């Protein structure tokens, strides 16, 4: 286990440098004008960033209003009676709901839970596993689809949220199994 972790850590340290140095080096070998080509590609960076702004604004401001209004707390209160019987603790429910909506918000929540329940508590472990095993679904939708101007997302959000819900349930279950 420890060895595997070391290896993974080692690999992840090398991935970016290998890509950034290896690709141009191979390009040079293939007689690609690497500098010009790089600049050509890099030019798109600005366009892409600007293109996703409207999508990000649309999603983030709606989520911001939803949180500020207290509707989030109401949703948590509403879901609690449903989840309590299946062994899903109320303490980690805020995390499960906030995680797909905002990355920085859920990181703040982990920090808050560490302060409230202590680093070693089961709740913090569940929240941390939830944080580590899912992504900010709405942000990913906004950025990836925004970059190619996709407005009709079809079943992308239901699929993403299904995976998120599954991950939240698995997180509770796996942590209970390993540490409970």
């Amino acid at each position: 286990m420890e060895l595997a972790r070391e290896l993974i850590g080692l690999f992840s340290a090398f991935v970016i440098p290998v890509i950034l140095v290896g690709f141009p080096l191979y390009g040079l070998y293939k007689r690609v004008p690497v500098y010009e080509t790089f600049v050509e590609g890099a030019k798109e960076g600005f366009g892409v960033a600007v293109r996703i702004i409207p999508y990000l604004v649309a999603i983030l401001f709606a989520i911001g209003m939803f949180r500020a209004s207290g509707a989030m707390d109401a949703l948590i209160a509403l879901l609690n009676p449903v989840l309590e019987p299946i062994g899903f603790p109320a303490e980690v429910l805020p995390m499960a709901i906030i995680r797909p909506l905002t990355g920085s918000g859920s990181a703040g929540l982990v920090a808050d839970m560490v302060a409230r329940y202590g680093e070693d508590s089961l709740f913090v472990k569940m929240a941390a596993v939830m944080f580590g095993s899912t992504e900010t679904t709405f942000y990913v939708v906004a950025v990836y689809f925004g970059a190619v101007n996709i407005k009709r997302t079809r079943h992308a959000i239901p699929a993403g949220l299904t995976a998120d819900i599954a991950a939240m349930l698995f997180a509770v279950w796996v942590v209970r199994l390993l540490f409970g």
Partner: protein
Amino acid sequence: MLNYIWAALLISAFVFAGVSDIGDLGRDTYRNGQPLPLVLEFPEGTAASGGRTPVRIQINAGVYQDFYATDESPAPSYDGVLLRTGEGMVLRFDAGAALPEPLETIRGVSRSNDDELQGTVEGFLSPVLGLGDDPTAAQATVQFEPVRFVKMTAIGAAALDFAETAAGIAIGLIGVLALFLGVMKIAEEAGIIYAIVRVVRPVLRPLFPEVPEDHPALGMIALNLTANVFGLGNAATPFGIKAMEELQKLNPSEDTATNPMVMLLAVNTASVQLVPPVLLLALLGLQINRLIFAIIITTGLSLLVAIVAARLYGKLPGSRASDPNRTGPFGEAPPQAGRDSRRGEG
């Protein structure tokens, strides 16, 4: 789908803010127009220098709880100053005072330019019962500015705040995007992407059956997933965007997601990672070592769910009807000719 979720977020925000504000007005949560009784001590005497007298503010917990009908209690004392102004005397709490609710909320409205809670001193009642004829203390009542529609103001402010944040995030991405899109261009020209496609084809083809066998999209997807697995979120985003652009070249529609796009998104939101995010490491420190195994199991299971969900939901009648690649009622394919060349630069 996103239309409804988005509208639901906005409408529920508005309704909740409205209901909770009207509830506050009905319960008179903030005791608008009623002065709060408290005791002022003058540690340096009552002589004012330049109109400012330092005071120690004592709020009796019982009085406070009765007054605001709350369970919260104030600290034993707060430091502040008494200001003599043209309009009378103003009591100002020091900045950063740890105030109980609802005073904390009142501070958001009844405040000085530096965000200090302040209110007008209505009158002094001297001598103070229980304090004898101690000249260094006096009982006073303070009136704060009326607080109305806190939540309504808050959601308005949140909307403006988050709009700014969103643009900030996008602008912050420019550098990293440029870096990786530049390198990707080299990889494309040098044929590296095609080499990667050949390696990952057996694994990715079943997930993206609609993508032609040798299409560069598969290579971009592979790089995106690799960066994800190693916890390199910053690098994963440009690869993912590039993969989307490649998939868009195969898309006969301008603005409707294809099945492979949904699959790429689902796999990304499930976020397969072997390396915990840096943020989590920063929050939990070495504790993370014990959690990494749990994270890997959870993320693996949720990846399976993501793949199954993307595939299953794609087969629903609604998703079939909106599929840009659907075949018409007589089995003919929608016109696709000439689109690939047109779309290259996006």
